[in-house]
């Protein structure tokens, strides 16, 4: 009889801890992270997409460079915050081998996307995205979504949502420095 309240308390504590863990995990785990998470350390899926100026662009065209692969859209306000950073970082790290590549996951027309990119002074290729390419990267549940690919074509990190410029720069430096190594967080 004396042990019963103790057992009930233990049960309540265990359940509370499990619920708290679940809530905490949901704040730091983006949707469908498992799909994109499986890419980390793996070869970035190649694709061929059409740029806003009508050329075919393949990811494999940039082998030997560190690639910042950014999924974005004209209707995405946070995307508009980081695009000027990408423009600056492309200028700064381009000579060291960085290539920023923007994939527009938009329902807008090519002209609208092109006008938008011009307005943002984008100095890197913008290609028109397809859902199938998003699926290759584990699904793109929201934007912006950015993948960092090293010179050997391996995904070393992926970021969902807007992060600070310094975090972006840190990932760029890792991608430039790494070569076939997996970045662990």
């Amino acid at each position, binding site marked *: 009889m004396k042990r*019963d309240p103790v*057992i009930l308390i233990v*049960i309540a504590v*265990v*359940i509370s801890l*499990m*619920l708290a*863990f*679940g*809530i905490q*995990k*949901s704040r730091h*785990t*983006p*949707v469908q992270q498992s799909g994109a998470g499986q890419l980390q350390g793996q070869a970035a899926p190649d694709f061929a997409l059409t740029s806003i100026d009508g050329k075919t662009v393949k990811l494999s065209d940039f082998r030997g460079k560190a690639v910042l692969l950014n999924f974005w*859209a*004209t*209707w*995405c*306000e*946070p*995307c*508009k*915050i980081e695009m000027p950073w990408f423009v600056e970082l492309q200028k700064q790290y381009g000579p060291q081998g960085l290539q920023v590549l923007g994939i527009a*996951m938009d*329902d*807008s027309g090519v002209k609208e996307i092109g006008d*938008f990119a011009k307005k943002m002074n984008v100095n890197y290729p913008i290609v028109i995205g397809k859902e199938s390419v998003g699926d290759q990267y584990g699904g793109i*549940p*929201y*934007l*912006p979504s950015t993948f960092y690919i090293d010179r050997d074509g391996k995904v070393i990190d992926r970021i*969902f*949502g*807007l*992060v600070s410029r310094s975090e972006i720069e840190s990932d760029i430096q890792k991608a430039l420095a790494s070569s076939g190594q997996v970045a662990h967080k």
Partner: protein
Amino acid sequence: MKKKISPILCGLMLAGVAAGQDFSTGKRQSVTFEPPPITAVYRGRPNTVELQFRINSGYHINSNQPKQEYLRKTELKMDPPTDIAIEKVSYPAGEDRSFPFAPEEKINVYTGDFAVNVTVRPLKTVLPAKYAVHGTLKYQACDNAACYPPKQLAVSFEVKVLKAPAPKKRNPAQSPPPHG
């Protein structure tokens, strides 16, 4: 006692794990719709039906009049039955807010609960009966760091069409009572 507690303990622990998983799947809808009760409407007359929407905590959607041209506005498109016309769709005013991803920029958004009013006018010739009116709310939601693709939410409500009441007959003015 131990035999009774073990299955209970396991069941409760599994429930806790399941609840934790539910939080982490992130499949919560950003916008939900609660159909209104059946609304009585008169044929040949404009009648307003209020549609209530709820934007879940942590999300916002662009208003019907976003300031930035590239933003996807919230829009309700109705597909009514043949004899019921949609005269007007009225949206609430949005709220100008700034967000952590753009602290110096104001975006006109809806948050929390908002209502869209639909003015319906059944034709004078429509048969008095219940009718279902269907439509779609198009919206695009964001949280504080990311934006979700534009979505469509199915909307529907029922109206009970009634004959317009006959106009009241006005009695002629009475003559004043005779003096004397």
